């Protein structure tokens, strides 16, 4: 029996990319306006009672840590309740979960969840790459983002015979989907050879195995189940969610062929939603690197452990495959503006369940879509949200 106490009645995002011309505030305003405009029966911005803003890093201008009081002014709602949620790469999906709980608690009837990330006001060296020098001075020294995932690829290839071609097929598929998504950072097709021939970033991952650094923002509007009908005849319900953590250091992992945080978060979300992996019609999963998507589809139960590579190469996760994954283009093609990523994935699920995904539309016979992120130090935190277009239980 799904939870279904909260409805998503609006969602939108801005075109992702290197948005040198837009400020953090302008991106947020754009995403909020898109969400407001998407509400079928109309929506007055002032109806927002509280906002949860996901920003993982912030910008050169110091928004990190103070997104909570930057966003209300930026979106024209100074004075509203607003709280920043930071939970690594799942920041956006966790803000969504917290927003849903805030509505379900009865404290608020209308909540805005907005994810905003300005990644490209800083150079790559000062931005994500600088984390090579962060953290423990010895045990994480040199640990750029690919180092959190590439050791899993090395081990997955060793234990299951996963090949670089199988990894590359994930990037090829997601770029294909991204080329159909007007909001995607990259809108071009690539080939397996392109991936194999791209420069090595962190063995065994090459450049096109990696997501780009992207600016972006996305927003969704959540309302309580009893008020959903005021806004739309076609709401999408929060069926369930799960959050889980794992040890923060890679050397504390007991396995390098699965993300245990994902497995635990998925189990909690499936239990709450009363569904299993075979009930899911499509999923937006965390493909910061090609290996991550292969781990995800195994850890989320869509394919047997160890079979993620062959399944991807065989097209099982394509738009016309058994379980379409990352119809939006995923992090690899749509981009990964960290705080915005999870919220944008929710928007894609919302479109798919409402039949509004255009050329990317897939069949949703069961009416369930799953959204997933995993990240943080040691990829030690994961959030899974499950959405449904099935009628509420009440």
């Amino acid at each position, binding site marked *: 029996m799904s939870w279904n106490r909260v409805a998503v009645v609006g969602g939108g995002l801005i075109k992702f990319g290197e948005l040198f011309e837009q400020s953090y505030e302008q991106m947020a305003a754009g995403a909020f306006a898109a969400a407001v405009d998407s509400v079928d029966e109309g929506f007055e911005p002032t109806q927002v009672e509280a906002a949860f803003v996901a920003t993982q890093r912030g910008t050169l201008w110091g928004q990190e840590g103070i997104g909570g009081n930057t966003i209300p002014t930026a979106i024209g709602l100074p004075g509203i309740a607003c709280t920043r949620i930071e939970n690594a790469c799942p920041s956006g999906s966790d803000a969504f979960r917290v927003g849903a709980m805030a509505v379900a608690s009865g404290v608020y009837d209308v909540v805005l969840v907005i994810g905003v990330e300005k990644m490209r006001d800083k150079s790559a060296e000062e931005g994500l790459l600088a984390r090579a020098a962060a953290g423990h001075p010895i045990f994480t*020294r040199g640990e750029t983002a690919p180092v959190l995932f590439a050791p899993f690829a090395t081990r997955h290839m060793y234990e299951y015979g996963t090949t670089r071609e199988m990894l590359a097929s994930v990037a090829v598929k997601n770029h294909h989907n991204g080329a159909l998504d007007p909001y995607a950072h990259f809108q071009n097709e690539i080939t397996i050879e392109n991936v194999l021939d791209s420069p090595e970033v962190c063995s065994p991952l090459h450049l096109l195995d990696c997501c780009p650094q992207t600016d972006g923002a996305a927003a969704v509007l959540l309302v309580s189940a009893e008020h959903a009908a005021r806004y739309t005849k076609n709401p999408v319900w929060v069926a369930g969610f799960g959050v889980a953590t794992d040890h923060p250091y890679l050397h504390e992992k007991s396995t390098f062929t699965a993300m245990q945080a994902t497995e635990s978060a998925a189990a909690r979300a499936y239990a709450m939603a009363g569904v299993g992996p075979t009930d899911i019609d499509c999923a937006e999963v965390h493909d910061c690197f090609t290996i991550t998507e292969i781990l995800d589809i195994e850890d989320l139960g869509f394919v047997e452990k160890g079979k993620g590579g062959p399944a991807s190469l065989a097209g099982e996760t394509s738009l016309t495959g058994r379980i379409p994954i990352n119809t939006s283009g995923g992090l690899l093609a749509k981009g990964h503006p960290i705080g915005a990523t999870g919220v944008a994935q929710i928007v894609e699920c919302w479109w798919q369940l409402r039949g509004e995904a255009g050329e990317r539309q897939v069949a949703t016979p069961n009416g369930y879509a799953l959204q997933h992120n995993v990240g943080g130090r040691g990829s030690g935190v994961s959030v899974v949200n499950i959405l449904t277009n099935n009628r509420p239980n009440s």
Partner: protein
Amino acid sequence: MNSNINILAVGAASPAWRLNRAEINAGWGNSGGTGQVAVCAPDEDPLTLGVEAALRALNASGLQIDIVDGLWWGTSRPPFAEGPSHAVMARAIGLSARSTGALCSGSTHSGMEALFSAADAIGAGTARVALVVVSDAIIPGLGTSYETRSGAGAAAVVLVSHGGNAALGARLTRTNPYLDRYRGDGELSTRDLYDPRLFREEIFIPSLHEIGEHLGTLDIANWSIPDPDGRLGALVARQLGIKSVVSAPVIEELGDTGAAAALLGGIGSLDAAGSLAIIGFGGGRTSGVEVRINAPVRGAAAVAKSITGGTSVSYTAVTRARGQLVGSGETVPMGVPPQSAQFVRGADEILNLLGARCVDCGTINTPPSIHPHCISCGGTKFVLEPLSRQGQVHTYVINQTMPAPFIAPLPIAVVDLDDGARVMLQGVGDGSDLKIGTKVELVLRRYAYERGVPVYGYKVKAI
């Protein structure tokens, strides 16, 4: 044997890189040049070299490390101009917090000063086991004649009051306030001689003659003598009638290893009964000491292997590693400043490579200071213990994309140690020798150098 200053064991170490002299010459528009010098990789320095030599000597000695009474370290380039150089090395070797000793520095003669100071401590009875470490990696001035001769290496000697198959005998020192090679306060690299002939005729040859003639009266078979330019050593030997210069092949392999040169040149010959004279030179001082060997000294047979090998690298790579070729961009600062509290809390667990073994389930948690609860069972009772220094690779990557000051390729490996602990650490070299299952050892290396602080930790090295 009438001395009570005995040599129980010896060890040696050399850095990872070798630079062909022809490469240096080519850099300055000159052709030719044969042979090579040893050079520190960016994660090595006289401290890491010294620790490696010390651990080899101590392993060969069969002694428990905590009975060593002190460390006497001679180097012309301690990693801190002022700071805890000696303390960091002592702790990384695993010496007791109660151990004593001294850091001798200021010139290449400091190796002899460390040896003599340790011998004096044994003689005075203030130490029964003294560890002597001599190590150096002089940074020669760019374009100097000495640049093609300047090498790097380390030697260690365990002196004891009782036992050991060799003993120190007569020794002497001569002091003259002459300038040879020098480095001003705050200067990065060592300056060349003002006048090579002045050095040769008025300083080097007379100094060596005086010491050599005295030691020559003692019927010495083997000699370790300095050779600052690749010719003077052989010249002096010929003039003194010395037939067996055991330091020559060491200099051929490593170049002039500065403060380490005298001992490093001689300890390999302690592998057989006989006699040895060791002469050290620098900073206006020349010293010599007689060594009588009754039987092979522990560790001496391994010295030759410890100083061979190494990877040939370019002159550009060397000048960058030495800090003489510096990029114009910004470097990324350490997230945890190297003078901050985490380094105070973490000094022991990092330098001694400690783990916290859970009393309830046996799981080893690393590092202890960030694990108030066991990662396996949640237990809170731990026993601190040094981690095994060997294991095998569980998985690994080679990171090619990092901002300065990182240098790609940077291997990073998850290693299952023989005691069951799992660690993730950087690897030495380019990682081409790492595979899943590769057997590795953990070695002390310099992870970073920032705000004047060298940061040391362990790295993974394929066996």
